[in-house]
């Protein structure tokens, strides 16, 4: 790790001030992506702004019927939270399958969503549930938030404070894990929301998480595993690497979508 200066601001406002005051600063929450990257000398932030303990950023509450998950809430806490289990159990299931126990007790939903790793699990949930990304400056709808691999709508000094989720009528997440990293080679989150059926795919797209319109249309007509079988899933725009070619990923999208629908 290169030398860096560590800050522990007491409030989001202080954190934002530090961010705007240091051009090469990075926000640190669970560090499950940032710290390994720094250890490999692939990132060298001048300052680390640790927001994990800022009051109000951790924990789950319900407001006007919606789940409000603090950005610094660890995956393990989302996985066992009573409100999440009641209102959006698919989200709890997803959180329970991220990484391994060590990762789950440090990694946070805000960190995952801010990073937008194309193989991360949470982006598919946020997109499929039509969740809102709440920051220190505004609220961003899911459809406006994900801009590409590791790219989001967040501004330079913008910090996610919470993810707000309207409980779906039904939802589920099915993930096919990379045997080595256990990240999603393909992860499909299916949700029947107030605005209709949404299907978000992570792990497979060369531009990061995306909605699959063909699957959404088929499931809107008939929310059944059989409806998934009739959809032709294209390999265009899908990732190809040593673990999975684009055609295999296209196939897995269908398989995981089917399993998610069956479980929803």
């Amino acid at each position, binding site marked *: 790790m290169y030398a860096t200066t560590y800050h522990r601001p007491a409030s989001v406002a202080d954190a934002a001030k530090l961010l705007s005051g240091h051009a090469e600063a990075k926000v640190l929450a669970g560090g499950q992506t940032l710290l390994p990257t720094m250890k490999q000398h692939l990132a060298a932030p001048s300052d680390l702004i640790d927001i994990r303990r800022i009051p109000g950023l951790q924990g789950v509450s319900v407001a006007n019927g919606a789940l409000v998950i603090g950005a610094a809430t660890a995956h393990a806490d989302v996985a066992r939270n009573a409100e999440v289990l009641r209102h959006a159990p698919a989200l709890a299931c997803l959180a329970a399958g991220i990484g391994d126990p060590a990762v789950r007790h440090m990694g946070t939903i805000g960190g995952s969503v801010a990073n937008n790793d194309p193989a991360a699990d949470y982006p598919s949930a946020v997109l499929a549930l039509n969740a809102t990304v709440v920051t220190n400056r505004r609220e961003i709808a899911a459809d406006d938030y994900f801009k590409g691999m590791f790219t989001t709508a967040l501004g330079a000094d913008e910090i996610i404070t919470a993810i707000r989720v309207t409980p779906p009528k039904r939802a589920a997440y099915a993930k096919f894990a990379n*045997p080595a990293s256990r990240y999603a080679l393909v992860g499909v989150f299916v949700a029947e929301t107030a605005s209709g059926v949404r299907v978000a795919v992570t792990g497979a797209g060369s531009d990061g998480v995306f909605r699959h319109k063909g699957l959404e249309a088929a499931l809107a007509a008939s929310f059944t595993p059989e409806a998934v079988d009739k959809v032709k899933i294209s390999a265009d725009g899908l990732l190809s690497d*040593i673990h999975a070619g684009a055609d*295999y990923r296209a196939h897995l999208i269908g398989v995981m979508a089917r399993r998610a629908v069956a479980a929803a």
Partner: protein
Amino acid sequence: MSEGIGARVKRKEDKRFITGKGRYTDDIRMENQAYAAFVRSPHAHARVTGIDRSAAEGMEGVIAVLTGPELVADKIGNLICGWAVSSKDGSGMKMGPWSALATDKVRYAGDAVAVVIAETPAAARLAAEAVAVDYAELPAVVHADRALDPGAPQVHDVAPGNLIYDWEIGNEAATDAAIAGAHHVTRMEITNNRLSPNPMEPRSAVATFDEAEDHYTLYTTSQNPHVARLVLSAFYNVAPEHKLRVIAPDVGGGFGSKIYIYPEEIVCLWASMKTKRSVKWTADRSEAFLTDAHGRDHVSTATMGFDTSGRITGFKVETIANLGAYMSLFSSCVPTYLYATLLSGQYDIANIHCNVKAVYTNTVPVDAYRGAGRPEACYLIERMMETAAREMGMNPADLRRKNFITAFPHQTPVIMAYDAGDFGGNLDKALKAADVAGFAARKAEAARRGKLRGLGYSCYIEACGIAPSAAVGSLGAGVGLWESAEVRVNPVGTIEVLTGSHSHGQGHETTFAQVVADRFGLPIGNVQIVHGDTDKVQFGMGTYGSRSGAVGISAIVKALDKVEAKVKKIAAHVLEAAEADLVIEGGAVKVAGTDRQMAWHEVGLAAYTAHNLPAGMEPGLKEGAFYDPVNFTFPAGAYIAEVEVDPATGVTEVVRFTAADDFGTIINPMIVEGQVHGGVAQGIGQALLEEVVYSDDGQLVTGSFMDYAMPRADDVPFYTIEHNTTVCPNNPLGLKGCGEAGAIGAPPAVINAITDAIGTNDLAMPATPQRVWRAIRAARPAMAAE
């Protein structure tokens, strides 16, 4: 007896290991030690046209920046391969120069060109990044079967066409004729996938030059500290042997990768002399992936002929073996004398021929890795047998039985002479324990759940206990492969055993003590095993090739024989009895049939006070022995894997794994089971998960656990382990060895099971979900569409 041979004694060494008090090389702290960081080539193949170290030298905490030309000027010798293998035409192997720090050329991504010595590891690493090296990139070749292409990039000038040797064994004409005249011929193209050893403890070295004494001390993660000292002294010119002490403290796994003496140890020793500081280096996992010797990487074509009753008439193999950018210490013998000599398998085959072409590529050097040549041979034979059985409509177990060797000793056409075995008995035990009879019902039940179940066999045999010195010497080995032991009975009766073997996970401190305890009826707490320090143990060849039992313990037994003889002479004199009437049991020397005895500690005291010894007897009770095996040993077994494949995704679950092994005499069944568990896990890892992948331009793509999949607990089942014992007739305790069997026998069993499940023989390792899915589509398109 409860602590002797055959007892499930808990390991003595575990107390320090599981309480965090193990003492590994990285734990060693020398006074005022400095740290090394290596500058490594990012290119797979390039000329080094300049090194600018000025920026690095000026950085905080930097003591020195050293390069290849200075190393060569100080007469540090090139790394060598110690086993001379010749080509068919009689010419010797083409050993290209390997300097510990590259001088004019780098030949793999990771090849070291300079080293920074600094006050802290962080300072060393930062400065290493500031060393500016100018490279003129050259095209690279990475795949074994492309290295010989006309026009392929040349890795070493001394090896035109990248060919290191073109070696053969067996009678080609007779084998060709036998196959040509066969009733049925099975032919396969088989790749043995390249692996990275990944021991839990990365490599480390702490080197100290004592200027006052002109003496070097090296702490190193080595499986064989005496071999390290020999090679560092005789070939690398670091220091004469008597001025070099090598210590391998606790070593956290090796699997072969810690046999070799790497550039890093050589450079640390030399740098310590240059800087007059202790120099310490410890790899991180990325560096381990990049520099630890890899294993396997064979591409083969195999042809087997059968007569009308299914008996093998001939077996022909052509192999290209990738040895990487430089010839590592044992590398030449792994795809030849440790591989082709096992191509008879458990079968009575009259005609065998094998041709091996070893090649250079711009990749990490390849050398022995758990099994070393025998997994490659076993994978070939056992896939051929299973495939042939399917082609001929025969039960795979029956085809094997038809061909089993049943009379011993058995001379194969490929040098090895098997001493003892019961191959049919192994198979019977495996069939029963695996409940093969119930498989059809389990397969049907799985099918109702949409899953494909398959059964696969692997009847492996291997050569262990390497090796009879004269025999391997005649085959080109530069060393002898005996082992040494010294048994010291202390004045008050405790015992120290100094062994040339070295434990890096095998539990020698326990099993060796069990042998002594068994012999004299002493508690194992009274027996201390000493290993790993060239100042304490005079010489030894180290631990690899499952040799510590057959060879290491045999040396101990010989020394124990001498101790017993002297003990009886002393006791006979003191008790005024005839030696022939004496027995040693329960920690005492007793006159049989009487109550007259001498306690063990009394014998020791008598020997060292020397007040009343037989006339002419020297005082003391200390005996040494060297043991040179008369033959290899031949552990063998029958493995049966049962898998369930999900045709929708190609995922394979190993639902059952049955191992029926013949290891000869077993000293500690618990430790042996552990060895089988670990070996089978590594075998399943090779079959399903692990593969080193290089891009075409020589970049290591699988450079971390993000991409290199090691088996985890949920990747393997609980194993069913059986034993069928035929003692080895060629060493005192009848030991065959057990450490590598799992890694040798498991991969073909798993792949045979998957191909049985999905109905095609065309499947490569690792059988990742993608590979299996594609294989299913290629064989049965309707099945895979789901």
